[in-house]
């Protein structure tokens, strides 16, 4: 078996024993429904897991910062839940995950606390008292 034949053989094995599950394809097709046009998209300006080395021990809070011109959202995600400090807006935050969403009020001090996340893939949608609508990109909490 030469190299090309071997690769072809491997591909055929993978097709038989490790095909992409249908539910994965199906979820991917449904992802289009998450498109939102009405909110201003905040930009990710800091991600503590992008820069630092992969191997560390102990507490490893995932720190992310998002910004628009007027609003800032600083996220601290720990095992299980997250906290976010919202600057420049009051109102509530809709915590979106692939398995559902929940609404949390922004405290007077600007903090939003989500003790338990139903899924690690998250985005935050700010619904401001003044009508302002801001959406963060999806991130892994």
């Amino acid at each position, binding site marked *: 078996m030469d*190299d090309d034949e*071997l*690769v072809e*053989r*491997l*591909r055929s*094995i*993978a*097709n*038989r*024993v*490790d095909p*992409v*599950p249908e*539910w*994965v*394809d199906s*979820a*991917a*097709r449904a*992802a*289009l429904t*998450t*498109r939102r046009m009405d909110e201003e*998209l905040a930009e990710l300006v800091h991600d503590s*897991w*992008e820069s630092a080395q*992969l*191997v*560390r*021990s*102990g*507490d*490893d809070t*995932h720190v992310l910062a998002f910004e628009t011109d007027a609003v800032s959202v600083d996220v601290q995600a*720990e*095992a*299980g839940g997250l906290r976010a400090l919202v600057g420049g807006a009051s109102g509530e935050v809709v915590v979106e995950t*692939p398995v559902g969403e929940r609404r949390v009020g922004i405290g007077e001090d600007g903090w939003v606390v989500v003790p338990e996340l139903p899924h*690690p*893939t998250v985005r935050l949608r700010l619904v401001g008292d003044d009508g302002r609508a801001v959406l963060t*990109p*999806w991130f*892994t*909490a």
Partner: protein
Amino acid sequence: MGEDNATLLSAAAQGDQAAWNELVARYTPLLWSVARGFRLGTADCADVVQNTWLKLVEKLGTVAEPDRLAAWLATTARRECLQLLRRAQRRRAADEEPPDVADDAPPLDEGLLLAERDHALWRAVDRLPEACRRLIRLLMADPPPSYAEIAQVLDIAVGSIGPSRGRCLDRLRKLAEEV
């Protein structure tokens, strides 16, 4: 086959589900291979694929280089893999549920599906050193990515792929004989 990426992306941006489905069908196998190359388990591979598509939805209408979509998707998937591994580490540190990574080779009923020789080859892929495993896993995707795409995904020179492929396949043959 079918429409080019630019046409599909622009249609999907207008809400054309069929165009989006075509993109999903075209590239999900590649993303799955990227995730499997990191030895992620099925649930984590599924998250990587899904998160990557969610990120493309965010970018719809602003994709600058549709011809490089495969590379963009695969690079995004690689980043998602690293974030998930990072998260798994934190989970371990917090002593939570065991992570869905490492030595979770795809569930195999391969005794029924595969001849002995194929079984040995399949097992050997998982025992390859990391760099080889990622490369071979990408080459196994159906449809296979181009060398240019592989180079972008693995962040290596295009010219090194041919020689690496040869070396990795030799190792694979040796490992398969040991099984």
